[in-house]
Every structure is written in C-alpha cells, then in structure tokens.
C-alpha cells in the first residue's frame, strides 16, 4: 500500500479555464479519502490526474515518495473503478478481471488464483462465464471492483462508483466498499457528490468547490466545525439553516437579532464575536435542523435559546421522524421533529435553538467565526 502527496497540483485547460487550483494534500497509507463537491468542482479531474488520464499542468504528484507526473497510467500501480464501470464488453467476467494480470504476463495459475479469490470476496463466482451485457448494474459494479482488486495495486481510485445504482443497492454496496477497505487495508481515493457516501465511508473528507479545496477533515469535524458557509451548507442533509442577523449586546450578553426576534448567545461564543469586533455588524448564523427544538419536543437537557414564533409551511413525514419547514420573522427555518408530534402545515408554533450548536459566519468572507 502507499502514501500519496499532492503538492500545489493544478489543472489549466488550453482555453485558460482552471479546473483545479493549488491542490495540496498528504494521504497516509490505508486512508479512505473522499473528494466531495458539487458537479464540475474539479474532484473527478483531480482523481484523473492522479490516475494519469489527465495531464497535471502544475505541481507535483508523488506516490510513495516518487514523482509520477510523467509516468504512464499503467506504470503508476493504481487501479480505478469508473462511474460507468468501463468493463470490456467483449470479455467474460473472468477475462475482464484477468486482463490486467494477463498484460503483466502473470502466470496462468497466479491469474486463476487471484481472479477466483476476488470473485469469492465479491460473490461473483457464479457469474465468471458471463459477458457484462448479461449482468445487472450492481453485478457490473462488483466486476469493476474485482478487476481493481485482482491487480493488488498501491492505490484504488473510485470515480462515483455507486451513482448509477438504485438507492437500495447503493446503500448495500456502500457497506460492501467499507468492508472491502477494512479487509484490503488499501489506500482508497473516492470521488462522490453524495455527502451521505462521503460521511459514511471516509476516514477524511476533502470538500472541493470551483476547483479549490475548501476543507480537509474527518467526517465528524467537517459536520460539527465547517470552516465556511459552503461546507456548512454542503455537508448535512437536510441542509443547515442560515439566517442573517445583527450582532448586539444587552446586559453583558451578546445577542443575534433577525426580524423581531432576538436570541442570546452563550458566553463562549459571544466573547469570540465581541473580541473580533462583530458587535453592531450583520453576520450569518447557521443551525442544523436537528438542533432546532419545537415546543412539543423534549429538550434533552440542551441549553435552549429564547423561543421564537414560526409558521409551518411544509410538513414531511419521513417514517420514525418528520421534518417541518417554516417561516420565522427575518428568515426561514427547518426542524427535525418526532413523528408523534401533532404539528402540521399551517400551525403557528414556537421553536428554540440549541444555543451551543449555533455556528456564526462572516457575511462577507463566508468564513466561520465561531462554532
């Protein structure tokens, strides 16, 4: 297995467009790194540069300390799983998986052993004689995975490998990939635009937007301490609530005012805002739906802010719980509630925020001020 080092990696196209800008990342052995971001953010381009399918226009890429910028894809000792699987349509499942070893002139016995081992792990043994056209999406996906495993490469690259599968299969394969990572002890770089995949699979997540790396962190930290508005909004589903509010000070406490509503911040957060000179200025504060507490809900020992009035505009039952979307003076708010909660569309309710979970962002730079 291997370490990777991306130093000031950039991709500039002949027409001047910069797909990836100054990308820096050290990947440790056996890490499961996720590149996540909206479509066109440069995550796939970065992955393809690591694979050698795109040229790197600036910066240095090292695998195990060796610079590989100009090394052919086949000599980088990496395997890739493509979004559309990219199986060889004219070869059987067995030949698809054996192909990389065959080209490396491995002995037929070694090939046979490796293919059957991979087929066993991925439950493909009964399908070895089939052509890809006779397989379902999930089976093709597993063959693509098998072709990568047979190689026993230093690094696995996966480009949105689950995006063509239906929702149920995706959840199943997600668990399979996670197990595979544990079993192989492999270094994996995985591209997705699905933040659930990112959160569940990654040991570290790289959030990318417009070709620029926004934050690299563990899933937990990314969720609880997003560095800016983009990361805060992108990670987490349903999305974090954002409301513009004016920072004030009353009786020694720092407050946030939006519309006719004023809430008091805990001292730990208030003091930071005060110290950084935000009193009197407008900021954006964020609160996740699960940290918004409706009046019928149990407060579970959380420190709640002052209650504010809201009108429910949409009610969505999700099964064991429900989501409500509502209007408050000065903004909009969504909240998780219990399925047993009697609140419905049109109701006038009161909500409070878990004061310790309020995030405050600078309105201009969009950077986080305090979590």
């Amino acid at each position, binding site marked *: 297995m291997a370490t990777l080092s991306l130093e000031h990696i950039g991709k500039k196209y002949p027409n001047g467009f910069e797909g990836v800008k100054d990308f820096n990342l050290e990947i440790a052995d056996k890490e499961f790194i996720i590149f996540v971001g909206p479509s066109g953010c440069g995550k796939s381009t970065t992955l393809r540069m690591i694979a050698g399918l795109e040229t790197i226009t600036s910066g240095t890429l090292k695998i195990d300390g060796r610079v590989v910028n100009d090394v052919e894809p086949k000599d980088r000792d990496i395997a*890739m799983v493509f979004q559309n699987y990219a199986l060889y349509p004219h070869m059987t499942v067995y030949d698809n998986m054996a192909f990389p070893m065959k080209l490396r002139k491995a002995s037929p016995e070694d090939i046979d052993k490796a293919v059957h081992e991979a087929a066993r792990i991925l439950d493909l043994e009964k399908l070895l004689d089939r052509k890809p056209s006779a397989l379902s999406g999930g089976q093709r996906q597993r063959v693509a995975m098998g072709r990568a495993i047979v*190689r026993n490469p230093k690094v696995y690259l996966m480009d949105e490998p689950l995006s063509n599968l239906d929702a149920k299969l995706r959840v199943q394969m997600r668990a399979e990939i996670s197990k595979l990572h544990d079993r192989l002890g492999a270094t994996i770089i995985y591209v997705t635009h699905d933040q659930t995949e990112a959160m569940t699979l990654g040991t570290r997540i790289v959030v990318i937007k417009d070709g620029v790396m926004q934050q690299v962190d563990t899933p937990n930290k990314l969720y609880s301490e997003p560095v800016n508005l983009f990361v805060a909004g992108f990670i987490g589903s349903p999305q974090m609530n954002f409301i513009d509010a004016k920072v004030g000070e009353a009786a020694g406490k720092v407050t946030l005012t939006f519309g006719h509503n004023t809430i008091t911040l805990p001292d730990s957060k208030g003091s930071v805002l005060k110290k950084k000179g935000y009193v009197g200025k407008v900021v954006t504060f964020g609160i996740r739906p699960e940290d918004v507490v409706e009046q019928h809900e149990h407060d579970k020992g959380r420190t709640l802010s002052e209650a504010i009035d809201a009108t429910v505009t949409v009610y969505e039952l999700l099964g064991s719980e429900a989501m409500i979307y509502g209007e408050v003076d000065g903004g909009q708010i969504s909240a998780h509630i219990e399925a047993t909660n009697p609140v419905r569309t049109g109701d006038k309710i009161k909500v409070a925020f878990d004061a310790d979970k309020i995030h405050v962002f600078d309105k201009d730079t969009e950077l986080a001020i305090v979590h």
Partner: protein
Amino acid sequence: MASLAKSKVGAGRDKTFYAILIPILILFVAFNTFPLITGFLYSFTDSKGYGDFNIVGLQNYIDMFSDVRIGNSYLFTFKVAVVATILTNVISLMLALGLNSKIKFKSAFRALYFVPQILGALVVGYVFSYFFTYIVPAITGTGSILASPEWAWVAIVVVLVWQSCAQTTIIYITGLQSVPEDVYEAGSLDGATGWNQFRYLTFPLIMPSVTTNMVLVMKNMLMVFDQIVAMTSGGPAQSTESISYLIYNNGLSGGQFGYQCANAVIFFILIAVISILQTRFLNSREEQL
C-alpha cells in the same frame, strides 16, 4: 367515436405509405426481377440475343465447366477480389485509426480521403489508365504494366483499392467511434496501450464493422466491371477479363446470350453463397456486445 376517428386517420396514413411503396415496387419488378427471371429462362436456350433460338436444357451449364475462357475469368476475378479485399480492409483500417485520432485538420483529411467515393468508376478508370500508360513508364523507364499479361491485374487491383478505401474507411471510423472512451481509459490503467490496445480492445470491439466491410468489399470486387472497361477491355490477351465483363461482352455482342445467361446464374449463386458464408464465419467471431 374516438377510436373510429383514429382508424380513419390510420387508413389515410396507410394509403400514403402504399402510394410511396407501390410505384417503386413496380419499377423494381419491371427492371430487376423480370429480367432476372427471363435471364434464368434464356440460360436454357441457345439464344444469340436476337432471332430464333432452341431450348438446349442444361447444355450451357455443362459446356461452361469445360470452357477455358470462362475458367480463366473466374480465376482472374477471384484473384483480384481476394487481394483487393484484403488490401482495402488493411489500408482502410489504418487510415481510419489515423483519421480517428486527435490530429489537426482531421475533418479536412476525412473529406480528402472520401473524394474517390464520389467519382464515377469509369472516370477513375480512365484517369488511372492515363497514369499507368504515360506517367508511370515515364518515371520508371519501363513499359506500361497495362500492356503486360502478367502484371495488368495489379493495375486493376490498385484502382479498385484506391477507390473502395473511401467508403470502407468511413465504416471503420464509425466503428471506432462507437468504442466507449472509458474502455480505453480502463485499458490504459490495466496496461493495454499501443499494439496491445489494438489487439485486445479496439479490434474485437470493431468486429461488426470488419464483417460489414469484408462482405461488402468482396461482393463489389467480384462484380468488377467499369474499371476493366476503362483500362484494359479485358486485355492484354484476355488476361484481365472479369466474369461480369465476359458476361457483358460475349453475351451482348458475342452471340452467346443464352450461354452467358447461364454463366450469370452461376455467378449470382456463387456471390450469394460467398456472402452468406462470410457473414456466418465473421458473425461467429463478432463479440456479443
């Protein structure tokens, strides 16, 4: 009511379709099917193409097999067809690989290589006749190969290949474009580059185009006619007499109408059988995509 209105519309549309189809069908039967059947019937006669004739049964077919001139025309035609088919396909595939790569002026090159397709075979034949008679000897200082009974067939092959490469190349380009890019990308990571890429990925994946081209080109080559008319008229010493040319020449102006009709029937069956065998053989090698 709704269904009634719908069926009225359907009937109107059917009429239009029949109006399109029937005139073409009449023309096809009159100028293709009818002559085919009459030709078949004449093959059992000693008709000269004019005047009286007698029914001779299978005599024409029996005589054909001991006719040296017909035998030679079959040998010449098959020799030319096999060599030209192989050369055309090899050259076209190489051209297609070049024209499908990421090069500058690709569209201009493609247009250029398509020009032979839009020229008439007779025109091309006459141009090459001039080329082989005057230009080549001037450069090499030897005589024209069109005058050599041993080598005139090579000139015919050159012209046939030059002209048929255009369409064949287009079909190969289409085939190459149907190979998904990510298959090549996966291949480049697995180690399939250069010759290995062609051998293990490109060629098997364009096998349907290979089948189409082999069958079409072989059929066209077996029916070679215009180029012979323009370049050699079957000479020198009947060394370039193709089957089609012999049927035309001796059937229409040599007083052997009935006899050459029998030749045409055999030739027709032969081409049909070859095309079917070729398709069968190549289809079995085509991959189930």
